[in-house]
């Protein structure tokens, strides 16, 4: 219990440091991107108008003072109001959290549901001959090819086939589970090839290990050797990758949300960056950083569940 408590406290400290570092870096980076007063003033280049806008946003203050005010407000979870919409910036980010989480979870489930069996199959049939061997090598080639196709190309191809030609799934909006399929598939296509290939190698190696040889000697069938002995060990090696992939999901989600018109945080981030709406950019990054941190912690937790030898230390 004490060990768990210590772990929780360390986790909180890590999260605080991570947020401080991220928000500090972001604070200075976004201010290099341009002058928001120029955006907010429209076509007016009247210096008095620009000065008034800067004053009302606090941008006329020395940078160190802006930073200290920002930090003090961030500690109180007050990231200000959007300079474009006048709405609470953190509330805007949290409003978009739900659609993003829905899409991310759907993608993760699809990703794991597809990658684990495929990786196991490819690993187990790597040196097979006959039809199975041919299928395995063809699949391996296709997956290698898929790894090189950019996410937005996959998205447009999926829309063309599934939405335009066959009209099976919608390509836009967020109306229930059907509209999740194509965006989730796009993200899966972005993540799955790498995991499948790593798993295939891990399973192939595990099948050569002594415990697999022993299992076969004891009369276990090949599927049993793969599923009960080789795959769990192969997954152990791949769990860290899965954790990293979940953290990297953010990249795929920004592209996917834009193409599919999915109303998540990625789109909000992109719009806010273009409009130099600093409070909203900072809010989205705060929420995203926390999510990525949580995803990494979840991956750590999963590794510990799979391999009890790993402890909090």
């Amino acid at each position, binding site marked *: 219990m004490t060990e768990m408590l210590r772990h929780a406290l360390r986790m909180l400290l890590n999260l605080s440091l991570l947020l401080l570092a991220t928000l500090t870096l972001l604070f200075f980076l976004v201010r290099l*991107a*341009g*002058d928001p007063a*120029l*955006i*907010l*003033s*429209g*076509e*007016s*280049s*009247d210096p008095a*108008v620009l000065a*008034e*806008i800067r004053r*009302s946003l606090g941008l006329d203050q020395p940078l160190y003072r802006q930073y200290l005010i920002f930090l003090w407000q961030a500690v109180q979870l007050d990231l200000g109001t*959007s300079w*474009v*919409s*006048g*709405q609470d910036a953190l509330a805007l980010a949290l409003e978009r959290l*739900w*659609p993003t*989480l*829905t899409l991310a*979870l*759907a993608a993760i*489930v699809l990703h*794991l549901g597809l990658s684990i069996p495929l990786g196991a199959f490819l690993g187990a049939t790597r040196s097979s001959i006959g039809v199975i061997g041919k299928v395995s090598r063809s699949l391996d080639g296709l997956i290698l090819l898929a790894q090189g196709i950019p996410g937005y190309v996959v998205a*447009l191809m999926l*829309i063309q086939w599934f*939405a*335009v030609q066959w009209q099976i799934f*919608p*390509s*836009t*909006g*967020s*109306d*229930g*589970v059907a509209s999740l399929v194509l965006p989730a598939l796009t993200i899966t296509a972005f993540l799955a090839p790498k995991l499948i290939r790593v798993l295939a190698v891990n399973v192939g190696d595990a099948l050569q290990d002594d415990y697999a040889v022993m299992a076969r000697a004891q009369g276990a069938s090949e599927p049993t050797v793969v599923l009960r002995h080789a795959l*769990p060990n192969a*997954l152990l090696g791949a*769990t860290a990758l899965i954790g990293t992939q979940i953290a990297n999901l953010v990249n795929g989600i920004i592209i996917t949300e*834009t*193409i599919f*018109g*999915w*109303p998540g945080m990625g*789109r*909000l981030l992109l*719009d*806010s960056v*273009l*409009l*130099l*709406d600093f409070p909203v950019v900072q809010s989205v990054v705060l929420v995203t950083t926390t999510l990525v941190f949580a995803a990494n912690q*979840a991956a750590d937790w*999963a590794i510990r*569940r799979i391999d009890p030898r790993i402890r909090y230390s």
Partner: protein
Amino acid sequence: MRSVVMASLVALLLLAGCDSKLADRQASAQNHDDVIRIASRRLPPGFANPAAHTGQPAVDIWPAFFDALTYIDANGNVIPWLATRWTQTTTTRWRFELRRDVRFSNGEPFDANAVELAVNEILLGYGARDLVRTSLLPTIISAEVIDSYTIDIETAKPDPLLPKRLSQFYPLPPRYFREVGPKTFARKPIGTGPFIVERWEAGRVLMRANPQSWRPPAVAGLDFIEIPEPIARRQAIESGQVQLAMYLAPEDIADLKEKQITIRQAAEPRLRMMVFVVREGSPLQSRQVRLAMNHAIDKDAIVKYLLSGAGVVATQMGVRGSEGFDPSLKAIAYDPERARALLREAGYPNGIDLEMDLLVVTNTDRAVFEAILADLRDVGVRITVHTMEFERWRAKLLAGDWQHDLFSFTVALDPLLDITKAWQYLTCERDNAPFCQPEVSELIETRARTFDQSERDRLLRLAHEKMTIDPPVILVHEMEQITAYRDLENLQVDNLMIRWDQLRKRSSSSHD
């Protein structure tokens, strides 16, 4: 690992459950056959905050539920809307008479108090540093209610364009606005228009008909879905998921027509040009060089082949429908031989080398500028290009901070269709004007203070004449807005604004 997968599945099902509840709610609005689904390029990031936006994307959606005092029709004429007539009582004071048969969708009457509140809040109150005030209506200083349906508006200096400027100024319902404040109003707006906003969600706006509107709609509702990618908007209309897709690319026209999807090309008040930055010692000081560059570009080919006909060759610093547009003016003819001769006359028989700041946003932009550069190279004008992102380009435009010989400029003349808008960036009164022509600047400045229309036209004609022989820019083409629709009829687009009240589902017997 199994527990991770199980936990994910449970969470997904929970999320999907909630999501499908949301979908059920949305479906309730869409169950009507005559709800129109629209693929919109972008929803206003400030939601329906009437102080925050002018032009796109607000004009794509706000006129469905807001009405302004005036309206600019497809020919650029300002016509009565919530104001039935207006007169100028002094050079800085205007009197507006208002419609008497209008109510806001919450039942509040529309009257002079609604206009006064809008002036006090949007321009002088909470919106004093927002876009509508700073760039559309900077001149208004007060409003005075004369009676329930008459209001006087005072400007700080004479402003002949005031009635046009009010075409994107939306009155506020006094009781509701005071009750909820600007923040809630932006998310739950109340207007006098043909639709009522039911929900403004992230990436989506659902509206239902306002049958009590003074311009009642012909359908039960509108469902705007934000789809930023043009190709995805095109796919959405192809698949039938939406009935109307806005702002498509020129290359989509032929394909969509083949698929029996109707295309509507409407004049978009955008003008593409390249502006000369004339400095001491630059070859561009020579009038012949600037004229030669205008003769060198085959603009007809650009419009025909690169824009698939979605545009027209520019003849002046304005677009069709803008006030003072002269249809008799001709574009500077494509004549590469004349261009070479002019360069020789100017003392550059071996051509010249220039540098250009280029803003490229779309694939079409890229293709058009590649063609322009190739044409210029063909007559001996070799241009090194420096591409830049929008924010940097815009900061340079506002500051006049140009280091190179030319810059690309697509000027948006909306919302006012003000033909002299582009001149604002060229006038000698600006610091660092790219090219100062004192005579032309004087003509344009005088015109801005002149109320008499025939005198305004005469001054503009003189400016155009001067510009034709001594060009400050290379005019390329006017743009067109491409809208695709299916199963709909009666689509009318005026100065970017779709008349949402007139749009209706196509009956089985009718043909567009």
